[in-house]
């Protein structure tokens, strides 16, 4: 049926088949033509300033040198000196491309007062280049040749770099000659030649270039080709009225969704394959040039691995497209949504362009970004199998989650009715919070990541205040206000039985040792680099902050604000969606993910699950707050006094587990459970 849509075939296959290579071809031809024009150009320039005679001499020497070089090299830089009454005006009008000012002194003041560009009629204030790194600082007292140009004109900007290089070379040669004439010896041991050697093979360098763009390009192809089918799939069916016909058939909603999903994936992959083959064909026939020394070698094994890697990516993209199509009321609305969705989808695919972000980092937990990083590393010959597997699983999990959302969207009545039939959506309030809580935490996580990027250089205390008070507590207040939550209920603000505090005495060391034991176990599978762990410990104990302040900030703030956010609102929002044990684990895992560093995921998730467990058993957030603060204090003290907490005997960790079990036995015996939890189904 898809193949019968002529417009789709034209817009999705035929047009891109022609347009995409033409774009590459056109741009490369344009660049070549422009480069040729610049290479053949004779740059007109004027000489001015109080030391114009010096500049003229330098130009004459440069011309002589370039003329000699032109005998063997046709593309040598050429210039001509033009005499004009007002050089600045001539430069502004495009009659000349450069002004060479000869200035007597090297100080900024002197150059400014004598500069011709300030006396000219130019209305715009010229930008100074004297402070940029690529301009050498003049020796004090020596005259200056100042090149004045127009940065908003290609010819002038190109002329600047060529003229600077030419004059510098002439000056270097003259200096060497002067030294020689003055009888200075040239001790070779004092002259250092800087050369370079690249250990990476050309295949790896090309692989890096390809790996950085491959996911982005594929995602772009998949989105743009899948969007055509996806729009037709649900939004189009709604508009035509065929969706109601389909929904009244005996087919299950999941069957319908799976069929539509498959069509989008197959069409998107097919069109992507056609486009890639088309590009390869153009490259083969040299219609699209490849960079010099290009040597990306993709073996059949690498190709198969990449294909396998991208399967969840295609599935995720198809699901997102289908969700958008289902959400939109018609074609137009769906098309309006696709561009922002595409842009948001492409952002994580830019991860390989970020310097210093390896796959073995928290980025492995970000769908799409993780596959993009994995592809880059694979193409540069690095195969970090546990991380590749984790990346694949995370993106596959995201694809499964979006598929579930898609299946749910097919039973939503807004697909066939204009009015909303959902009381919760309509009325808002606490019931709506339970549906939106995970979305809120996704947004908080993204905000935390972005903000952390800007605050990482700040003092640890400021970072803690911004993250915990600004982001966590701010979001918590917003959630409470928007969804009209009762803070006492949502944050479990009630006191537990006194015996619980006794249990905490056992729980604090027990929890810490158990979490460390789990960290060591996880380290067997995913070894954390020692340097990373050390850097983290160093960052926790900055030398310029008194330890007592660190202790205060690291215990009180997380104890209060992280608990309000995670064991307060997150737990409250999920309490009726999961049974207590999975609920504790999910809250723990989300808490672990918020700690961003991959090596901290397992221990923080374990502690988070323990805090959630004690909150569920006591119905109170206070034990978790005290436990969290005490646990952080214990960790800090261990770091401060260099206790070998990560190198203890396994008996210690087992003893910790025993203490933890005893603590939970006390909590269980004196439980006052969290209200309104999801109950297990009654036994039949």
């Amino acid at each position, binding site marked *: 049926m898809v193949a019968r849509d002529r417009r789709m075939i034209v817009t999705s296959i035929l047009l891109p088949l022609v347009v995409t290579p033409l774009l590459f071809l056109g741009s490369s031809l344009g660049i070549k033509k422009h480069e040729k024009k610049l290479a053949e150009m004779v740059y007109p320039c004027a000489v001015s300033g109080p030391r114009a005679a010096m500049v003229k001499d330098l130009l004459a020497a440069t011309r002589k040198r370039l003329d000699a070089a032109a005998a063997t090299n046709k593309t040598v830089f050429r210039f001509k000196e033009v005499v004009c009454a007002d050089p600045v005006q001539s430069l502004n009008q495009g009659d000349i491309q450069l002004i060479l000012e000869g200035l007597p002194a090297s100080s900024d003041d002197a150059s400014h007062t004598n500069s011709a560009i300030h006396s000219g009629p130019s209305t715009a204030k010229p930008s100074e280049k004297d402070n940029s790194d690529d301009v050498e600082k003049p020796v004090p007292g020596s005259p200056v040749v100042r090149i004045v140009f127009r940065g908003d004109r290609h010819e002038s900007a190109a002329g600047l770099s060529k003229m600077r290089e030419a004059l510098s070379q002439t000056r270097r040669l003259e200096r060497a000659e002067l030294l020689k004439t003055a009888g200075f010896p040239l001790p070779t041991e004092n002259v250092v030649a800087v050369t370079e050697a690249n250990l990476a093979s050309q295949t790896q360098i090309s692989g890096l270039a390809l790996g950085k763009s491959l996911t982005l390009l594929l995602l772009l192809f998949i989105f743009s080709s899948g969007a055509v089918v996806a729009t037709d799939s649900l939004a189009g069916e709604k508009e035509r009225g065929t969706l*109601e016909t389909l929904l009244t058939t005996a087919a299950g909603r999941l069957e319908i969704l799976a069929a539509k999903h498959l069509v989008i994936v197959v069409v998107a992959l097919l069109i992507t394959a056609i486009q890639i083959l088309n590009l390869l064909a153009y490259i083969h026939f040299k219609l699209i040039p490849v960079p010099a020394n290009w040597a990306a070698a993709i073996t059949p094994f690498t190709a198969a691995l990449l294909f396998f890697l991208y399967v969840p990516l295609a599935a995720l993209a198809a699901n997102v497209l289908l969700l958008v199509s289902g959400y939109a009321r018609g074609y137009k609305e769906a098309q309006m949504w696709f561009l922002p969705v595409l842009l948001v989808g492409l952002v994580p695919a830019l991860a390989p362009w970020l310097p210093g972000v390896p796959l073995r980092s928290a980025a492995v937990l970000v769908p799409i970004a993780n596959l993009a990083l994995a592809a880059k590393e694979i193409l540069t010959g690095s195969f970090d199998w546990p991380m590749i597997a984790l990346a694949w699983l995370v993106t596959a999990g995201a694809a499964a989650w979006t598929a579930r959302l898609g299946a749910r969207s097919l039973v939503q009545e807004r697909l066939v009715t204009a*009015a909303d*039939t959902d009381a919760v959506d309509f009325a808002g309030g606490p019931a709506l919070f339970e549906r939106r809580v995970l979305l809120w935490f996704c947004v908080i996580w993204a905000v935390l990541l972005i903000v952390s990027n800007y605050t990482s250089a700040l003092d640890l205390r400021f970072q803690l205040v911004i993250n915990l008070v600004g982001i966590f507590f701010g979001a918590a207040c917003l959630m409470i206000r928007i969804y009209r939550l009762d803070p006492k209920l949502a944050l479990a603000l009630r006191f537990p039985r006194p015996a619980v505090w006794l249990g905490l005495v056992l729980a604090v060391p027990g929890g810490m040792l158990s979490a460390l034991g789990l960290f060591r176990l996880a380290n067997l599978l995913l070894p954390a680099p020692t340097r990373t762990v050390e850097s983290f410990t160093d960052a926790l104990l900055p030398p310029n902050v008194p330890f007592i302040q660190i202790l205060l900030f690291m215990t009180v703030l997380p104890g209060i604000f992280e608990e309000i956010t995670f064991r307060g609102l997150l737990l409250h929002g999920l309490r009726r969606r999961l049974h207590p044990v999975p609920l504790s684990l999910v809250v723990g895992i989300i808490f672990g993910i918020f700690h961003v560093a991959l090596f901290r995921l397992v221990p923080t998730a374990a502690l988070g699950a323990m805090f959630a467990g004690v909150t569920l058993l006591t119905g109170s957030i206070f034990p978790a707050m005290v436990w969290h603060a005490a646990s952080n204090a214990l960790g800090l003290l261990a770091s401060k006094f260099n206790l070998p907490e990560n190198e203890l005997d396994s008996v210690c960790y087992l003893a910790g587990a025993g203490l933890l079990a005893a603590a939970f036995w006390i909590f269980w015996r004196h439980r006052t459970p969290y209200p309104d939890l999801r109950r297990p189904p009654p036994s039949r």
Partner: protein
Amino acid sequence: MSAPVSVHNLTKTFYDESRGQVRAVDDVSFECRPAEIFGLLGANGAGKTTTLRMLATILKPTSGHATLMGYDVANDPERVRRNLGFSSSTTALYPRLTARETLDFFARINGLPEDRVAERVESLIRRFGIASYAGARIDKLSQGMKQKVAIARTVVHDPPVLIFDEPTVGLDVLNALEMQQVIAEFRAEGKTIIFSTHIMSEAEKLCDRIAIIHQGRIHACDTLANLRTATGQHYLENIFVHFVQQATANAQPSPAGANLEAHGPDLT
């Protein structure tokens, strides 16, 4: 044996930004018998389509329950749909499929055994006189031709219950008469048919029993003869007006009802 279609206290509430809570269907109950055409007669916005969409499992009842061939519409939607043929003015056909492909697709998707599909499709093509344009794409067909394919599509899996929601809307007189004739033939074949309309003459001619629905409530449900006796009116038009006036007079002040009346057409 239980009734093919049984509806008990069915209620559907919508929520709307401007109108608040709207009770589109309010405590509706009725039963349909085998080989009967059961008419749902009501003005635009009375709640006919919402009731039928709940029976077709597209909408979920807010309260009450309904069964179709013994299967609960809320708990067993796929079995319900397997036993149902649903046709309305809003159920369109795929424009890029041919008539034959349309019948073939809907036979398969509705679970007709593989070995019966071809035979069933060909028999329907013959029965409805589709043969001459069976290979043509739906978007190339005239309105009358599309209507025939749509009817064949509705019954392609041979369901025991058929729902026709205002099936003659937009049809010319001849096509409307043909549609009425086909529906009468289905009754003769023993199918249970729910027929919703706001055209009095259609209901008068076709329906064995008629339910008069107004503002989401059923105000009368009986044979035409009994309705005539009860109201002392001969024409269905007058009978309908009688019940609507009675309902308006008896109505308690109800903001929801008023809302429904004011904005009713959106809900059909």
